[in-house]
């Protein structure tokens, strides 16, 4: 039950994009087409879960025993960057065409602050290893959900009669704000 609460909380209630406002850059940048948004969401979920697991291990098995917890941000950034490189190498080896198609998403994931945020928050909340995995999976799927909804709305907006002054970033940010308000409705789901 505890794990389900952690999962639902990260997915809907404390959604990393619409509650913590982390990962806004790819959320706005890659949400103009539904297909790109789904690809980005899935790639982020995969990397986020692996990165959180490795970051948790590094924190509790290296940083805490040596009393160098203040290095958490530096080490987590290194972990995320190197993991993305490793995943990139594996995809390049396993499927060159898929690597060619995903080329742009992988470097974007390295600079996604939501991934670092998940690793830092799971340490801050003192989650166990399994809780961290479930939390990061929920956070990743929450990111994928938010970016997919946003892409769907933006594709529809192309046919809407938007005032000239609001076209582009203006209407996108207003839409993101309304979406965040809508997600606030989930806050009563878990007490």
């Amino acid at each position, binding site marked *: 039950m505890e794990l389900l609460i952690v999962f639902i909380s990260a997915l809907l209630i404390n959604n990393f994009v619409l509650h913590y406002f982390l990962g806004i850059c790819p959320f706005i940048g*890659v949400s103009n087409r539904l297909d790109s948004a789904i690809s980005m969401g*899935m790639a982020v979920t995969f990397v986020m*879960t692996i990165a959180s697991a490795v970051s948790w291990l590094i924190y509790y098995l290296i940083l805490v025993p040596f009393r160098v917890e203040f290095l958490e941000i530096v080490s987590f950034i290194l972990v995320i960057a190197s993991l993305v490189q490793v995943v990139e190498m594996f995809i390049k080896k396993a499927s060159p065409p898929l690597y060619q198609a995903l080329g*742009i998403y992988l470097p*974007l994931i390295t600079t996604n602050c939501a991934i670092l945020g998940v690793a830092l928050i799971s340490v801050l909340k003192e989650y166990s290893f399994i809780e961290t995995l479930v939390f990061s999976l929920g956070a990743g799927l929450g990111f994928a959900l938010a970016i997919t909804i946003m892409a769907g709305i933006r594709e529809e907006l192309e046919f809407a009669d938007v005032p000239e002054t609001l076209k582009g970033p203006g209407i996108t940010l207003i839409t993101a704000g309304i979406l965040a308000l809508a997600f606030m409705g989930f806050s009563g789901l878990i007490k």
Partner: protein
Amino acid sequence: MRYEKAIVIKVEGSFAHLVAEPSESCEHCVFKELCLGNTEGKLKAINRVNAKEGDLVEFEIDILSLNKKLILLSSVGLILLFVGALIGYYINPFKMNPSLSGGTFALVFSFLTFPILKGKRFSSKGLYPEIKRIIRREK
């Protein structure tokens, strides 16, 4: 399906190397500079229309097929990661720290995704973009 324009820079058997022109979909993307600056829009495409160096061509990307493969890759990776973590954490075959064991198994299992999926489906020609027509021949 998505259609984009590109210039052929090199022909290699049944494939052609292209430099894609920034399209409308790139226009409002905040990562345009990063994307085009990093790869210069270079890609490899199936060349069934016999395009030559310097030709301006239109190529097609099967986004649906790519998305399906990406979702499969991510889902299988995540499932294997969780299976590995649960085996390592709860069964702990090497009787070490449960978290360390869970993490090690999770990583090993998740990286097994690539050899498992490295089959025909992931290395097939179907994943490459394909040149559909020649817009302008190089004189």
